[in-house]
Each structure stands twice: as C-alpha cells, then as structure tokens.
C-alpha cells in the first residue's frame, strides 16, 4: 500500500515540476531561436497526444490526420479573413471555432472511414487526406488554391513574437493530455481498449463500438485541427501541399510509436525527443543532403530495437526489477503470476 502512495507522490511531483518548467521556459530562455523550437515541439506533443487517443487506444491507425491539421489551419484563416479579425490576441479566441468546424468534417470522414477495418482503414484515411488537399488546391475562390492563404500578422517585436504562440500550443497540449488521461480512467476508455484487443468480442459483450470509435476519432481530429489553426497563424501563410502534408501525419505516428502506443506519456516523450532533433539535424546537416537517409536510419533503428516504444519498455524493466526484489532470497521469479495476459498491452499505468 505504502509503495503505491509513494509512486503516486513521486509521479505527482514530477508532473508539477514538468509543468512549472514548461511554463517558465520562455522567460528563462527567451532567445527566439529556442522559443521557436519550443513552439514546434509543444505542437507535436499535442499532435501526438491527440493522435494517440484514436490510434493508441482503439488500434485504428490513421495516417491521414494531417488532413485535420490542414483543415484547422484553413478554417482559422478563412474565419479571420471573413470576419475581418485584426492580428493580435483576438485570433486565438477563434481557434476553438476552427476546432468545432474540424470536428464536423471529422464526423463525415469518420463515418465513411470507420466502416472499414485495419489495413483498409489506414489507406482510406490516406485517401481522405489527399481528397482534402485536392479540395484545398482547387476551390480557388475559397482557399486561394495553389497561391495559398494569408493570415493577419501581429506587429509584435521579434523577441516577443513566439511567446503567445508557445502558450497557445502549451494550452492545447495540456488540454490533449487532460482529455487523454480522463479517457484512460473512464468506461469509455475501457471500451476503446477493448476494441483494440478484439473488436468483435467487444461488440458481442455490448460495447457500442461504432459510437465509441467515431467519438474517439472526432475528439482526436478536433484537437489536431485546433493545433493546426495555431500553426497556420504562427507561420502566417499556408499552402495546400505544405499544410496538408503527409510528413506531419507520419511524424505524429512515429512519435507515438517511439514513446509507446496507448500510454499517456509515451507521445509526449516521443515528441520531445524527435522534433527538436529533427529541426536541429536539418539546420546543421541538411546541407550534406544525406539528411533524409539519416532520418530514415534513425527511424528504422527505433522501430526495430524498441518495437513497443520507450515507455512500455521502460515500464517492463521497472516491473521486472520489482518482481526480482519481491522474489526474495531464493531469487525465484514466477512469470506466470505476473503480467496478466488479459490486461491489454499498454494498459498498465504509465
């Protein structure tokens, strides 16, 4: 009993420290080069967490989430220009509206895509992403087409500019984490995990699989859409092929894989490791043109050496160490007593 309390206390303290660090970061390291990387890193923390709500919990791998990212960006851009919103802090308040619009389109896409399973689902999400990209490119009157869409540009000084965006991304990432944590502990979350393990059995047992899957999909898409909206505002100008970008979609997935699918902190860890590394690598080694090969190599190493991700692998190690201690002086450790097979992979507390 006491050990459990100690673990929770340690976890709570770590959480508080992490949060405090995240909040004071822009004041401790106000250098724009750093805050810029911070903006993109926290952005990916949010994206990975949001993707995990669908992919990690239900097991339905969506490779087309970049569609929602771009859609959210376009939604905000069009809202701002339609209502003539001035640059500054006001646009941030329209981000939730962009999120709601993204949720609406996610319902439509999800309803179609979720009729399929597993591999077909993956490909259908990719197809939907390309469809949205085509729409963005060709509905020129609405989106500006290939010439792109402009956002109002705040007249903040170079030193201050990144900070509001950093906090906007941080708020969204924390929102995503909170939602993810809440889902984990709820019956809804249990249902999602059941779907991941064996959907037909879950259906037989009475889990409303269609409704649950669609809900998870829409929540995930809405978060991604809001993050995309802030991104569009940050870079101030978006194009269809750059903002609905398969690389963004794949990066999210890779980060969750690296960190650990279905865990809460896995996506965070994955994002915090991969995004700054990628930006730094491109800045310093891009010139050698082998940057893509290098990235792919890292990618492959991660996947082959840590197939379950960092968090579950680390948890395994810790659990094994604990069992070893609990085994006592004889050193006998019984494997069959622990790690109950019925518990879905990744459902252990992160």
């Amino acid at each position: 009993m006491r050990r459990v309390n100690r673990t929770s206390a340690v976890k709570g303290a770590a959480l508080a420290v992490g949060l405090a660090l995240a909040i004071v970061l822009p004041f401790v390291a106000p250098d724009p080069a750093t805050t810029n990387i911070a903006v993109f890193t926290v952005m990916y923390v949010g994206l990975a967490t949001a993707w995990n709500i669908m992919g990690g919990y239900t097991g339905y791998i969506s490779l087309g989430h970049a569609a929602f990212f771009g859609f959210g960006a376009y939604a905000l851009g069009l809202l701002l220009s339609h209502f003539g919103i001035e640059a500054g802090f006001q646009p941030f308040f329209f981000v939730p509206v962009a999120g709601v619009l993204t949720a609406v389109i996610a319902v439509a896409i999800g309803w179609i895509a979720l009729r399929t399973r597993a591999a077909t689902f993956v490909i259908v999400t990719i197809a939907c992403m390309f469809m949205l990209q085509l729409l963005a490119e060709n509905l020129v009157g609405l989106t500006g087409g290939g010439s792109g869409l402009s956002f109002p540009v705040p007249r903040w000084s170079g030193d201050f500019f990144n900070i509001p965006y950093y906090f906007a991304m941080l708020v969204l990432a924390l929102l995503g984490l909170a939602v993810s944590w809440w889902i984990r502990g709820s019956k809804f979350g249990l249902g999602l995990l059941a779907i991941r393990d064996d959907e037909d059995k879950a259906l037989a047992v009475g889990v409303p699989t269609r409704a649950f899957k669609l809900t998870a999909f829409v929540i995930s898409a809405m978060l991604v859409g809001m993050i995309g909206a802030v991104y569009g505002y940050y870079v101030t100008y978006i194009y269809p092929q750059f903002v609905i970008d398969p690389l963004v979609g794949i990066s999210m997935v890779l980060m969750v894989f690296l960190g650990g699918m279905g865990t809460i902190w896995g996506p965070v860890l994955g994002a915090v490791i991969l995004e700054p590394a990628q930006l730094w690598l491109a800045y310093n080694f891009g010139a050698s043109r082998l940057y893509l090969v290098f990235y792919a190599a890292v990618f492959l190493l991660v996947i082959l050496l840590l197939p379950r991700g960092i968090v579950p692998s680390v948890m395994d190690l810790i659990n094994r160490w604990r069992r070893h201690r609990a085994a006592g002086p004889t050193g006998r450790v019984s494997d069959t007593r622990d790690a109950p097979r019925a518990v879905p992979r990744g459902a252990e507390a992160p």
Partner: protein
Amino acid sequence: MRKPVSLIVAGLGLTLAACGGSSGGGGTPQSGTPITIGVSVSLTGDFSGDGKALVQGYDLWAQDINAKGGLLGHKVTMKYVDDASSTQQVVTNYQNLITQDKVALVFGPFSSLLTIPASTVVDRYGYAFPEPAGGGPQVFSRGLHSIFFVQPAAVEDNLVSFTKWLLSLPAGQRPATAAYATQNDPFTQPQVDKAKSLLEAGGITTASYKVYGTEPIDWTPLAQQVVNSNADVVILGTQEPDGVAFIKVFQQQHYNPKALVETTGPDQGKDFADKVGAANTEGVMVPAGWWSSAKAAGNDKFTSEFVAKYGGAAGDISADAAEAYSVGQVVDQASAKANSIDNAALISALHSGTYQTIQGPMAFDSTGKPNGSSFLVQWQNGLTVPVYPSSAAVAQPEFPKPNFAA
C-alpha cells in the same frame, strides 16, 4: 568558435579604422570585421536544383565582393542552411540565423512559396530581405516594407513582352485564337492570367483555358486538350517537366501552333534541348529577366567567371544563379549609397534610386515590387536569343514557329 577570431580581427579593424577606414552606424560591426550573410536555401526537397544554382550565384558574388575588399570594407562569408523546401524549416532557419547566429544580413530563399512565410520572420527583426525568387502577387500584398524582389519585373508581368509582340504583328499575320494551360501555382498562374486578359482585350479569342494542379503525374490529357482546341498560339504556365511533356505530346499529335511560349522550361538551356530533341526547340519562346550575352552591368564578368569556376557554357547558366548574383550587387550598391550595412539604412536606401545589375537596371516601389519588365527570348538555331523589345533584341522574332520534327 567564431568569437576569438572576430575579436582579433576587430582589434585589427580598429587599428585600420584609425587609418581612415569607413565607419559603421549605431549597431553595425566595426569597419573591417568580417560579416556573415545568412541564407536559407533548398538543398534537399523539391526545389533543390534551383537551390544549388542560387548557392552558385551567391558564392560567386561573395568571391567578387571580397576581391574588391568586401562589402564596405567587411569581408563576406556566406552561411547556407537547408530548408528542405519546407515552411516549418524556413521559418526556423531565419530565426536561427538572425537571433542565434546573429548574421549581419540575410538574403532570400527560393520561390514565393518559401519567401512569403520567411518574409514575416525577417521583417519583425528589422532586417532587409532582398530576395531573388519570390515575385508572386502575394509577396507584395502583405504590408511589408523590408522585402525586395530582385528581378526586373514582378512575376505577373513576365509575359507582357510576349503579349505586346503578338499584338504588334500586322493584321494579316496576327493569330486569331489562343490556348492557355497553366499550373495553379503562384509563379505560373498570375503570368498566364494577365497575358490572357491582355490578349483578349487585344482581340485574340480564347480557344481553351485550363488550370491544373501542381501534382498530376501525367500531363498527356491536358496537352491533348490544347491540341484539340487547334489554337493558333499556345501560352503555357509550366515548370520544366510539364513544359517538356506538352511539347512531346504536340509532336506526337502532329500539332504545330504558330507561336508557343512557356513560363519555364525553354530557359533551361541544354537540359531542355536534350529532353525535347534539338530540332524541336526552334521557335519556342520563354520570358526572361536575364540572358547570358545581354549588355548589362557586370554581365560579361559574371558569365566568364561563372564558366571558369563551375564549368559548362555561358548558355547553360541558370537564371537562378544570375538572380542570386544580382541580389548581392543590389546590396553592394545600396550599402555604398547609404554608407552603411545597417539593415534599416539599407531598407530606406533600396526604396529609391535605380540599381544596375546583370539583369539590367531595376528600381523598387514601397512594397518592394520592381517596376520594369522582362524580355522575350526565343530558341533560334540551337541558341536562345532575346527578340523583343527591340531595345533588348539581338535577333528578329521568328514567326510562325517552324513545325516540330515529324
């Protein structure tokens, strides 16, 4: 790593300054200190071919300016970073260059696609942004005053010379119909659309007008539609691969328009001739802001040095390299005029006066848009020559275009 070196040089510089070197303004480096100019170029990704040409142009300029003693006495080092042709990276790069590496000046990246997001970053730090390749209408409509597009004409005016020439043909010869096909890209579409409105106003009927996405792999159906329109004249808003593909289809279908102009493709020199077949280049036109044997400030020197440094023939030099070189020339003249390399001083200097570059003279309005026009170049006997307007022309325009090889 750079710090101890620059301290030493600064010390030397101070001594030199005492002997009568020029002085910088408020926050500018001491005279004689070497400066770094930062550029984000596309070394990987979709634009990497153009990125490489930009680097060649910038490097050649840096070499020339250092031979002259530097930019207002400051030796120039170029620092290049790769933006992988991505928005995220280009925004990150300019922030890093300006705030972390603290470069003295920045030059622009390739294409409006990357220039536009980069321009807001550069502007908020008060840096001047002379750039060689972002000239689409949106570049100038964002209310920024620090950006300068170093080409003779804004992108949408590129085909104006062509339209003027076509409309100047005597009534008996003038074509009656025109077909248009363009990518919906900020470089190609504005030019073609403007040309279309000018030609329609001049009485040339539009037989076909098609806009296509930047992604289709197979341009055959599109080219087929142009063929089926049977227009006298064809105006294509293409990049290089589609420019070549259209000509191949025209040849396959035995379609021979009286005039054919493409926005990019025919300006790629030997590469273009190899791909379409040397015999098929005859008569094809392309707008250009620079040409290898034009009489413009420093052009002879540029072409001979380029060939000496990088090999190849003068006719194969990419216009991207010339545009990059011009950026350097403009900054050189502006800093001499303002007697400072301080960014604010450069910005105000660049808004007035005329600058002599290897692309000809140019001047910028308050949004950084150049107010000149490009000229029309045509393939004749395996070489590209300017043919219109007469002030730039070296040969007469060939009309009608000879048929493609059967």
